[in-house]
């Protein structure tokens, strides 16, 4: 099935097209989400959201890109949104904890939070997560997903030198952080 046939099938509500999309790209989407979230359950949830968005909004697909590139973009945005929303949830949860800390019968609420899990993460993982958004995206796609500079440039809609610059700055930032960590 070509990209055009796939997208046309999704727009027409063809279940075979939906199944083809999920079967063909689920590993790629899941691994991309995992490289941002570092958590199996969260990555699976976000992967489902990515496919739901892709199937429901197939008409938004622009024909100049490949389906895989489009899915990468949705996966990255969804993963970063998930992290951001969990940060907000964690903030309100902490306020709630603080306000109810003295009250009897207050049960702690579980927050499924990659940020909370980051406390258990290694220093290197935290240093990667702390990179500026674009550097982090470029780093995750190139170093964790193993995509080429050209593929990263296509997904991020940037020119090749811009990707090289992002990766260079990401490398410098990591080097700086790790150096200060090892000197302590």
């Amino acid at each position, binding site marked *: 099935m070509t990209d055009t046939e796939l997208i046309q099938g999704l727009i027409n509500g063809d279940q075979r097209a939906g199944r083809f999309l999920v079967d063909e790209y689920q590993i790629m989407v899941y*691994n991309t989400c995992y490289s941002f979230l570092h958590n199996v359950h969260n990555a699976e949830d976000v992967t489902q959201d990515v496919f739901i968005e892709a199937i429901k909004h197939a008409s938004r697909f622009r024909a100049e890109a490949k389906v895989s590139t489009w899915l990468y973009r949705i996966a990255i945005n969804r993963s970063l949104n998930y992290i951001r929303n969990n940060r907000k949830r964690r903030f309100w949860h902490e306020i709630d904890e603080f306000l109810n800390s003295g009250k009897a019968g207050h049960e702690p609420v579980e927050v499924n939070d990659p940020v909370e899990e980051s406390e258990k993460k290694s220093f290197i993982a935290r240093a*990667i997560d702390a990179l500026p958004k674009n550097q982090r995206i470029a780093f995750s796609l190139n170093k964790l997903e193993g995509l080429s500079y050209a593929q990263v440039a296509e997904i991020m809609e940037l020119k090749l030198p811009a990707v090289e610059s992002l990766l260079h700055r990401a490398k410098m930032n990591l080097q700086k952080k790790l150096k200060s960590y090892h000197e302590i």
Partner: protein
Amino acid sequence: MNCRECENIIFEANAAQFVNNQVKNLLEPHLSLCSHCHQLYTDYAKEMEQHFSGRRTQADDWFYAKVADQIKVANHDPVNTRNIFRLGAAFSGAAAAIFLGIFIGNQLIKPISESDYYSQVEVSASMPYASDNLYQDDAFLLVLESYLSETEKAAE
């Protein structure tokens, strides 16, 4: 190979190259001599390997069924409750910011409001000059006063 070159190779490599020991083989001679680079390599490689172990290589046959179920649920629930809560939080935040702004503004503007201005003027008008009270009860002033009056009398 020096430490700088070693670090460059570590940061240039991707996760797969750590897992298949490609990086280790390349750096082995330097790592056996430099404890700093050895530590950096060990920490970094561990992280990359850990990441790699969480990746999926086999597709889940039931995944499409899960996605289809979620789509059905979403179609039956046209009002997205998550969005309502998200907007609710934003509106509450905006309202709280407005009330806080009004409160702070009120506190700042209060001292120069009209009634306060006149009451302050009244207070300052009725207040005696501070210099009036200067040395009023001072024993030294009494001695000085009596000395001056005596001197005046003598002159007369």
